[in-house]
């Protein structure tokens, strides 16, 4: 089993930004709509549902603020902010249906789907599931409960929006993956380059002392005939260091050419 690579800081920032935007939109939007609905249709289950959503969105924001930054925390906050839309839309449709009033819910479904597709933090699975469930809800209300949508072509138009939204989610997930891979490749290349430069630096710094030792050994060999064993040992040591120096150079070149 392979572990997913750790998220980079820009990935976490982008995920948190999406979750925070979704939570703020849910909080401010539902608060405004609660005021509008309480004035237009009075205190109702719909207004209560909207206020409940405001509370949950506030919790989502607080979690995002209080928990250590991570993709997981952003996904949890996003789910908390977005899932209640389904319930609120359901209550709204039933409320208006029961009252015999007219409200175009189709555009609300579509807006919610596109909002989810645009702001979903990372893993597209849950957001895609939510989008599909919104579409299913629309179809079930139409064909099981007989809630007839106002706009012609519904609920099929909303289902088309659902397909588009899922496509956007998949496309964003692929792009995120591509960007993350590119960032990882760039970091890997930079690390290899640092190693190559370090190897070359070690080699360069070793060359001058090695030159001194090599010539010193030649002098000992010439001046001290009784020290031939010592001189030979120094020669061998210089030879080994020379080989090491060449190996370091080869290694640094191979790092520079290493496939990424």
């Amino acid at each position, binding site marked *: 089993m392979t572990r997913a690579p750790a998220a980079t800081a820009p990935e976490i920032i982008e995920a948190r930004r999406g979750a925070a935007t979704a939570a703020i939109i849910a909080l401010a939007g539902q608060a405004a709509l609660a005021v509008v609905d309480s004035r237009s249709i009075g205190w109702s289950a719909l207004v209560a549902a909207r206020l409940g959503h405001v509370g949950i969105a506030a919790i989502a924001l607080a979690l995002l603020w209080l928990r250590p930054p991570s993709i997981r925390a952003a996904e949890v906050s996003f789910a908390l902010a977005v899932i209640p839309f389904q319930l609120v839309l359901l209550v709204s449709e039933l409320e208006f249906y029961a009252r015999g009033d007219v409200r175009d819910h189709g555009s609300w479904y579509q807006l919610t789907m596109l909002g989810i597709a645009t702001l979903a933090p990372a893993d597209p699975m849950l957001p895609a599931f939510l989008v599909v469930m919104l579409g299913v809800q629309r179809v079930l209300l139409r064909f099981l409960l007989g809630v007839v949508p106002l706009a012609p072509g519904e609920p099929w138009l909303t289902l088309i929006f659902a397909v588009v939204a899922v496509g956007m989610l998949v496309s964003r997930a692929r792009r995120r993956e591509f960007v993350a891979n590119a960032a990882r490749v760039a970091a890997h290349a930079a690390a290899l380059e640092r190693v190559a430069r370090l190897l070359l630096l070690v080699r*360069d710094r070793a060359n001058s002392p090695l*030159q001194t030792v090599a*010539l*010193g050994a*030649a002098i000992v060999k010439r001046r001290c005939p009784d020290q031939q064993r010592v001189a030979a040992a120094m020669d061998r040591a210089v030879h080994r260091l020379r080989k090491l120096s060449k190996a370091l150079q080869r290694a640094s070149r191979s790092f520079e050419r290493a496939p990424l």
Partner: protein
Amino acid sequence: MPRILICDDDPDIAEVMGEFFQDHGIDSVITHSFDEVVAHRPEALSCSLAILDVNLGFGQPSGVDVFRWLQREQFAGTVVFLTGHAVTSAILEGARMLGVPILSKPIEGETLLRLASAEASA
């Protein structure tokens, strides 16, 4: 036998190289910087071979500067550069463009003697 100008900012290398040549009956002029070469102008110009370290220290005139000075002073001998640096540097690139042989440290004693004897027979 030829006289050899050695210019290397590493005093150990310069001294040991001088001793090495002395053991083989070759006189040398040991310097560690551009200024020292200029200060020893008559001795430097009397040499038939100049072994110049390419990099003579950060912020200091390089072996390339010494080479150009020798050219200006009508140096009649041969010049070779010696470098311990494999990393491409501006100075090393400059030395390559001059068409002067560049030898990498550590250089064998036999190679030094071959260079010296080539000058002696020239």
